[in-house]
């Protein structure tokens, strides 16, 4: 295939210089080239949202972005959400409200919800439902994900 290009992904504050083909997806680069396997790949066509990461403050489906497009950008993945042993309010809410079962879709939901709420902390609960409707979960039936995100949203607003 084509020649490899040298790029640098900044993942959770750490610069990672890698060489990738231009066709390599950001999801594959994060997982395979940078070893951050918390970002999951569920469909590779942008529907399920399991691969959602935050790129320069925006939630992005990393299966629909090429790694070269993220060169030099600030990427946040689920591995960067907690501070040491202290879970992010969104992670804690998912645990308290049983918002996960198998846990495969969870990183995508966490990054989606955190990314959107950091940008628009005052989003209404109903608007949040529209946001959450962009990702798929096959285990929970969503009710507990909704409860968790609403609870974390309230907490994130309170801590501002």
């Amino acid at each position, binding site marked *: *295939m084509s020649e490899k290009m040298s790029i640098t992904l900044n993942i959770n504050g750490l610069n990672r210089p890698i060489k990738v*083909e231009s*066709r*390599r997806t950001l999801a*594959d680069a994060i*997982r*395979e080239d940078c070893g*951050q*396997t*918390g*970002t*999951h*790949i*569920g*469909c*590779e*066509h942008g*529907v*399920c949202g*399991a691969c959602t990461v935050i790129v320069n403050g925006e939630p992005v489906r990393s299966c629909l972005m090429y790694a070269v497009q993220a060169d030099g950008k600030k990427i946040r*993945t*689920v*591995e960067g*959400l*907690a501070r040491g042993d202290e*879970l992010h309010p969104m*992670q804690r809410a*998912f*645990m*308290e409200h*049983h918002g*996960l*079962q*198998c*846990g*495969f*879709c*969870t*990183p995508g939901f*966490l990054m989606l919800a955190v990314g959107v709420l950091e940008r628009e902390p005052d989003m209404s609960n109903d608007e949040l*439902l*529209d946001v*959450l*409707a*962009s*990702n*798929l*979960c*096959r*285990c*929970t*039936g*969503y*009710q*507990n*994900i*909704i409860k968790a995100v609403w609870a974390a949203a309230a907490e994130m607003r309170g801590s501002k």
Partner: protein
Amino acid sequence: MAAGLIGKSVPRLEDRLLLTGQGRFASDISFPDQLTMRVVRSPSPNAIIRSIDMSAAKDLPGVFAVWTFEDVKALPPIDVRLTKIEGLGPYRQHVLARDRVRYVGEPVAVVFASDAYVAEDAADLVSLKLDPLPPIVNATDPPGEFDPGLQTEPLAIRKEYGDVDAAFRAAAHTLVLELAVGRHSGVPLETRGAIARYNAARDMLEMHGAAKVPHWNRDQIARMLGRERKSVNLYEGHVGGGFGVRGELYPEDVLVCEAALRFKRPVKWIEDRRENLIACNHSRQQTHRVRAAIDRDGRILGIDNEFFHDQGAYVRTHGATVPDLACAMLPGPYRVPAYRAVGHIRLTNKTPGGTYRAPGRYESTFVRERLLDAIAAKIGISPVEARERNLLAKADMPYDLRLDTLGTKMIYDSGDYAGLLGKALSATGWNEIRAAVKLRRSQGELLGVGLAMFVEKSGLGPFDDVELEMHASGAVELITGAASVGQGVETAMAQVCAETLGIDYTSIRVIHGQTDRIERGLGAFASRVTVMTGEATRRASLILRDQLLGAAASLMQTTPEQLLIADGVVQHASGTGPHMAVADVAAAMVGNGKRVFAEATFESGHMVYPYGVHVAQIQVDQLTGHVKIERYLVAYDIGRAVNPMLVEGQIAGGVAQGVGGALLEEFLYDESGEPLSVTFADYLMPTVRETPPMDVMIVEDAPSPLNSLGLKGAGEAGVNAVGAAIAAAIDDAIGRPGAIRQLPVTPQRMKSILRAAIRD
């Protein structure tokens, strides 16, 4: 005792890793120097393979090897695990197609390359010359020829008791319905994956990415590859959803193992989503022609249940499980004096079928509950009355159904069906809801409510083992041959163990799905783990507790009978006197060269039978045909809930999958056998917006007498009756009893039903 830990909604042990990105799912596992495998799949639903040209693929830089059937012809087809019914053997699937392909997606060749991108490029370069044959796409069409001398109906499952013909002769009314359930599947968010490596120094073959039934798959892989079973080990990591389909033995699992052995290099295969939708087991598709004989009051005299099960192109590991269960579970909670079931297994040119959460029950509950609604309409009584007249009574328990399934006699162990129905109706405010619905209907809305009842089965034996060891630190390791597909097995087992031992559940490490850690195990399916492994865990914990109390008694100069363990401390039952930390007792025992270890087995020849009621309130959009679920309730008697939060989670997740099957999800094929549902844009699963708010009511009125804790399973209660309840609610909304005869009720189907209603 750790007082009241069983029955408490404690947080899960599993969560922290999964929330922080530290899970280890199949695709997260890699080994140095590994090859990537890519499968070349049939583009044709039915064809003779004339030739396969691999030259261009082999020439691509980075490609290591390309295999076709010739390279693996020594491997036998994949065997049947469940329902070993004679006559299915010739219909099993080889790991690569031999001289014929029978469904779009069938593995024809495999490419091994240095990297996944190259492997996919190379797979595209493999050129197939196929001579197409006419496909069979409908299981209800007359059977054709599978191979010379072999019909596409290998056999029909038959179950019968009572005098069915006499029942129909004596009937005041005979009801005849034709009902169909569409083709759905579990579709876990994590696609399948398998990573094999061969350790020559130890002559050990390993496969990672196992799920559901690691021990059985280990034995099968060893047999197929001609190895000793102890020279193969399977390892389950995190599993991104199971739902019946994941973890069965598939061609790709065997291929990575064979390749790792032959190449002496690790081989990794990760399925993509299109593959998952055409290669992983499908399920559900069945057409029933059912007749019921009833008396003038609407009491059932007999049921004749004939159906056509669309098995797809091959018989897979489940054998005849789904139609067998559809035969056996159809009577449900009702008194059916005479019953006959004939389930035709039909091979078609579609993706092969297997089990999907509540196999044979999602289908048979839809059929049975449609029948009960038809009885209500025929006699002119309410749906509730029709059910109350036919329900088995509490006094009938235990109730011998005179049927068998999965090698067990069906005996309902306990239940109060009418009691649960009453609770569900009062929880929903049934009468008030019906009045409110009537009012909104009079204002022009198409609004309706429906209900459905079911009996589930769970806790399939015949055994489960648990090994328990307390280390000198007081930490406990619990090893089971069960598996986890993400439902919270570790937490539930730790709760049972901790309550019995009197220690903190977070100090227990639960090991599952590792064939090198325990001799045998049956895995996770049929809602069996909490019941079977739970009881084995309790038994092992009791033994370990007695060992600890015995040792503590001599250290504390008293007798074991006077001691108990609470909150990790051995103390006098009287509450006075000396006490000692359990960890110190364990340390003393280990210091004396003793192993604080216990193992126990729970054997059971009978399943346990939980039961439930679903109630749905829906609104039909006259213009678009969209069905909106406004409210949903599940009432479920689980016997005893180990962790109600996890039970509710299981039920809520099941409801969402049931909604998918009732309104959205369907694997469609065109007349030429081409699959039309190959992406998430075609196969529509419920999102937050399509999943209704729900009330889950967990009831513990009928604990099972078959295990000491009274446990029954939770896994399949949520999905079981969704199709049935929603169908009843739509009938009610449009005022057309019996209008819904097919699932899913997509907007297109709903609109054509509405158009037909206007024409009438």
